[in-house]
């Protein structure tokens, strides 16, 4: 029985069928990027365990890749594999196992976000690309602010968010991946507070370019038993923050991209854009920065293809913003990835394996034809 299972799991046929399904996923996931954009397509087809095709759930990228990993690992237990003649094949497949393990680690543990720094200023926070959070900031004290952060996974309709130090409760009414504000024509209901008194927060279609999506949230504040109880709305990137007063304490409420605080800061000294002379084609971008740790600055140059690596984070020159007045702002991509060494090692292993295998088999395949 055990043998039978191993035989099935290690069969090259299983590998072929998983490959066929993976190819279908890749084609569908690529073509659908035209309509739903790269990020949404990636979430649906590749970073998912299952996705639904109409009413039918179908295996997503993670299931297929996991199956291939199991297939590869169980193949290692085949006895007729461990022969000198097949040494190349064994090595290639070991490399394949490593590649898939690395992919799994990256998929589960890596995080990426961006750091936006104006020339002359500094920052120690990384904003996640996609995940949002609701920040309730108690600004009553002059000397410090107190942050209460509720993450996006909590934004389920009807969910109650509370904290013992907060004098009120929050009930999520609606969360929108992409929203817009429209001015109200009729007076709003008496239950609405803040900007919802004058605007309606409306859900709109997700943009293909994920950067253009502005998430929105509608929630109810209750339990303060003051005028502040009521329905509030927030949209990502709104210029005027929402505030409430409860029990003599003043709070700012903000919907923002999930922030990670770094144990060091980055100060942008100068951003440089060099063009090929006489053209509109950029030759290079670079950010001249100070890496400030324990108040000691260290100058670093981040260029295209030359990132800064520090404490598990890697900072890349990703983009820039030029204001009409000529001020430059750099956009650095910040990535933390525990699996990043795996592709490097596995590609070397796989190449060695394939080369060995070719050395063994090529002379037979290119024998002179006998005539």
């Amino acid at each position, binding site marked *: 029985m055990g043998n039978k299972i191993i035989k099935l799991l290690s*069969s*090259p*046929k299983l590998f*072929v069928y998983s*490959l*066929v399904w*993976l*190819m279908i996923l*890749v*084609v569908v*996931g*690529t073509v659908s*990027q*035209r309509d739903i954009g*790269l990020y949404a397509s*990636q979430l649906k087809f*590749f970073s998912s365990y299952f996705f639904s095709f109409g009413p039918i759930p179908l295996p997503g990228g993670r299931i297929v890749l996991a199956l291939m990993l199991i297939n590869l690992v169980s193949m290692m237990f085949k006895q007729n594999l461990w022969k000198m003649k097949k040494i190349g094949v064994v090595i290639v497949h070991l490399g394949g196992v490593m590649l898939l393990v690395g*992919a799994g680690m*990256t998929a589960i543990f*890596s995080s*990426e976000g961006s750091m936006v720094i104006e020339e002359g200023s500094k920052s120690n926070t990384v904003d996640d690309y996609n995940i949002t959070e609701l920040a309730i900031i108690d600004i009553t004290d002059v000397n410090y602010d107190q942050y209460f952060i509720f993450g996006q996974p909590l934004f389920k309709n009807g969910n109650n968010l509370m904290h013992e130090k907060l004098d009120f409760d929050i009930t999520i009414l609606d969360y929108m991946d992409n929203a817009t504000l429209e001015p109200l024509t009729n007076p709003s209901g008496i239950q609405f507070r803040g900007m919802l008194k004058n605007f309606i927060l409306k859900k709109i279609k997700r943009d*293909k370019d994920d950067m253009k999506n502005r998430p929105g949230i509608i929630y109810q504040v209750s339990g303060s038993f003051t005028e502040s109880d009521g329905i509030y709305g927030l949209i990502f990137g709104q210029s005027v923050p929402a505030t409430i007063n409860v029990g003599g304490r003043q709070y700012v409420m903000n919907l923002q991209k999930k922030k990670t605080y770094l144990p060091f800061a980055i100060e942008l000294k100068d951003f440089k854009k060099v*063009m*090929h*002379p*006489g*053209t509109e*084609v*950029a*030759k*290079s971008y670079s950010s001249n920065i100070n890496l400030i740790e324990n108040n000691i600055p260290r100058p670093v140059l981040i260029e*295209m*293809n030359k*990132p800064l690596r520090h404490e598990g984070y*890697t900072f*890349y020159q*990703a983009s820039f913003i030029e204001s009409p007045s000529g001020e430059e702002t750099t956009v650095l*991509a*910040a*990535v933390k*990835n525990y699996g*990043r060494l795996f*592709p*490097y090692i*596995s*590609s070397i292993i*796989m*190449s060695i394996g*394939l*080369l060995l295998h*070719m050395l063994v*088999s*090529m002379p*037979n*395949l*290119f024998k*002179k*034809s*006998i*005539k």
Partner: protein
Amino acid sequence: MKNLSVISISIIASTIMLYSSLSAESFFVSDIPIQEGGRIKPLDSFARNQSLAFYGKRKIKHEDLSAIDWLLNLFTHPEKGLDQKVFNLRNPEVVNALGLTWTNNFHKYSYNELFPGIEKQLPLIREIFEKKEVDRDVFESQLVEIYQNVMKFREIVSSLSCLLPLFSVYDSDLASSLHVEPGQLISYAHVMSHRGSLFETSQGILTKPESEWSVSEKEIALLLYNLQQTSSDDFAKALKIIPPSKNDSSGLWLSPWELFDGRLIEPHQDKIIKSLESYLLARFENNIENQNIALSSYKTGLISHVGKKVDFSILSKERWLNEADLFTNSLVFYLLGFILLGISWMIKPVIFKNVAFCSIIIGFCLHTLGIYLRMVIMSRPPISTLYETVIFVGVVIVLISLIIEYIRKDGLGIFIGSISGSLLHYVGFGYAADGDTLEMLVAVLNSNFWLATHVTTIILGYGTSLMAGLIGHIYLIEKIRVPKDSVRLKSIYNNMFGVTLIALFFTLFGTILGGIWADQSWGRFWGWDPKENGALLIVLWQLMMVHMRLSGLAKPDKFALGMVLNNIVVIMAWFGVNLLSIGLHSYGFASGIAVNLILFTLFEIVTGFGSYYWAKSKNKVLIRSNN
């Protein structure tokens, strides 16, 4: 085989000799460096690019005029140039909109013919400019293109008018103050550099009424009037041939007219301008000797420039590459090889096949030399644009074909090499027709290390994959033609599997290297970007074929069919993903390509499945008759 190697060595030797004939000593007018498209190139390339943009070809064919001669004639005889029919209009609608009549066989028009129509259509053109490029229809984008071409042409025509000998002075005092003989022709530039107190004197003249002017004063006034007329050309800044001042940090070269905007002219700039002036005069007078003197003094001027030095050997290499037209010549030899192979099939003598083999080798040498020279000129790895991928895949397939031919000696390699080499040259010419093929790269791609590793590997993968597909075709054809010759079939099948393994090595390794580049440059190894997915799809397909063979799911016929269909995957990954126009890699978007892709896909499906089932039915008959 002995005589073959002798021949091939002699070819290589002759190519090297040919190449070394381009000595760095001589400096031709076509070598004059000019800045265009972000790099310094010889005037010859500039002339060819302009001719391509206006006329549609790299020379003025109906006048049998080389691009450089056409350009120089424009400079020396601008008024003739304005009447020369150099604008190629492809669309009758555009021709009618410009108030001209469309003739069926010759669609070339001159500046003077086009300009009135364009002036009338200016409101329409302005309206089209308001639209985004994607929203313009064919007529609109062609009208805009012709408008831009006509404006550019006007600018080029006038860009050296400041150096033309247009004026003469007869008054001896005035002549001597301008350092010329009375009656000698002089240029705007000459007057400006010897003007001395000319403008102060003129102030005195202009305050007097015209009737009181003396003869010499009248001459000065006339000269001033002419100068002013000529200076209306100072918009013409298309010809960036003057190296910048030594204090300049932008790296921007200047056009002659820019030098006369009141700035300080440095010695090297002055020398270049003066030499160019005397060159134009000598050309005007058809004096070859003086032309050469002027050119050597031009070179001295360039050398005396203290900034970033001009590399003369690179310039002359590029000019030589333009003139030698290596890829066209390589195509000729590939086609010749194919014809000779055909003859050797019809009439038996081995000599024809050997000559065909030789012909492919010559074609290959020229092909490789072309790629090598492009690398030297741009000082970067062989592949960085879509055009270069095509040229490189061609050379890879021909190389493997040559190796296969060397081993098998049965014409199979010649057949594959000549067909695929020629086809890919034609595809390459299609891309080259868009403009200068030696382009500068955007910042992300500007990394020689990764271009040399990832890009080269993945393109080697494309090449070898296509090769495996071609052998797949041949296997299926042979299966129909000689189903009983199991030795031959087995050896072709083995070759196909060998090439598949090589292809898998390059595509797999190239794809992972691409991931590593992505990890190095923007922080993620894999982002499911269309181009990445395309490359992945080739790897997956080949992995599938290899494992289908292993598990018995694919017998040789099916394996051959699978590799034929792999060609579709390769072409889609190579060109198809650009049609999606999303993602970081879509570097070469072209809509006309969609039709070709569909045709190719249909062709592969029909021929692949067709020959597969034909072979299968033939095999059945064979088995039955054996029983």
